[in-house]
């Protein structure tokens, strides 16, 4: 099992969701976050808005998947979020030790989907 955390441009959320549905990944958690990468907040996305040094608004996705869903999920996120410009974001993948569905108390890979 893997936990994927992706940071993307806010306006790309709809497209990423769209691609994830197509890849049959339906369980995601979305939150609004602030941050900046190597450019320290200078970005072209906001049309030259004076954002220097400021934190930029991003969307953070958390998706827990079974191993066989890892690559399709990563591909879907890239397909939806990539523009080729700075600020497109990042995807982090980590091992997931356990997953428990509260309602049924199921554990492991059956609990994820």
């Amino acid at each position: 099992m893997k936990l994927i955390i992706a940071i993307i441009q806010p306006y790309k959320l709809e497209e990423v969701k769209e691609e994830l549905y197509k890849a049959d990944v339906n369980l995601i958690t979305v939150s609004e976050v602030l941050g900046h990468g190597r450019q320290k907040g200078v970005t072209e996305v906001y049309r030259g808005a004076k954002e220097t040094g400021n934190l930029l608004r991003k969307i953070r996705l958390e998706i827990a998947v079974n191993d066989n869903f890892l690559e399709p999920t990563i591909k879907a996120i890239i397909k939806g979020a990539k523009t080729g410009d700075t600020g497109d974001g990042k995807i982090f993948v980590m091992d997931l030790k356990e997953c428990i569905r509260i309602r049924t108390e199921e554990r492991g890979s059956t609990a994820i989907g």
Partner: protein
Amino acid sequence: MINAGDTAFVLISAAMVMLMTPGLALFYGGMVRRKNILSVLMQCSVILCVLSVQWVLFGYSLCFAPSNGFFGSLHWIGLNGIGLGPYDGYAPTIPHQAFIIFQAMFAVITPALIIGAFAERIKFSAFLVFSILWATFVYAPVCHWVWGIGGWLRNYGVMDFAGGIVVHTTAGIAALVTTLMIGRRKNLEHNVPAPHNLPFVVLGTAMLWFGWFGFNAGSALAANGVAANAFMVTNTAAAAAGLVWALLEWVRNGKPTIFGTVTGAIAGLATVTPASGFVSPLSAIAIGILASICCFIGVSIIKPRFGYDDSLDAFGVHGIGGMLGTLLTGLFASKAFNPAGADGLFFGNPKQFFIQLYAVAVVALYTATVTFVIYKLVDVFMGMRVKEKDELIGLDLTQHRERAYTVIE
């Protein structure tokens, strides 16, 4: 002969109508997604600025300067020669300028109503040009036809007390035409945009409801019985309509909503506008009920069926309400409530209903045609719609480089 009471009343009414445009801004602004609220507030605010100036320069003259039946003359351009006295042709007991500033607020809010049709995807520069052209070539002539001295619909006998035709039919039809021409917003299928701030919608409604007393009662242009009756029927129709919309939702969807209730109230206000100086308080209840039923059908059944994206229901509420109200005026009008008016069909004068019907049809046709031409022109030269990426990022950032809300301080 200037009357102090009338003058004070009309000036205060003008100030109340002014407040309706910021009220409309919040009413609409609360309905859009949070990335677009400033664009809506900006559009309403800039209309207040631009059309107030246009009004003094030539707008008022085109609307109200006596000439032929179709277009006002340029006699009062720049408010030339108006002075401090009254103008007997429109309102003999108040200064001419009181009438002018009162009417200015109507000219401001009318194009602002259309914003609901193309919200969240209009290019700001194109919107500005479109609005000025529309105010000049749609609002001004129709206003002259219905309210101007010598206006052909006025002479024909049409009754429009406070703007069911001049304001709501024109804005509503223009909303329908522009929403069809600009097309649907992106990504509607999977992500139906929910209003981002319903308390703003309620606040905006409160400001509109309050201002509407100036709009309708003030249209008596004197502090008299007709004004008091207009005030009464305005409140009554709004209340009845708000109540009925909530009940319709309760029955159809299982729960009454505040969004529906205030939408109903606005539908009632728009619908009673043309009738407000001519009908009884009891008729106002009937008008309010019919307003909500018809607008509810327009918004909840017709719009989804045909699939046009009238984002904030400018046509569904103001257009349908304004046209319906103009027709209902031809049914419910009674000389007992305004000796200067006429009786409607229910009071033995069926002819009035057909006069109203004819006027609405002609104005709707004219508005649709000229709005289409203006839209096409501006679209060819400037492009009316923003680029897809700008729409996704939101108009606040891409059109105004501002955002309304922060995440963390």
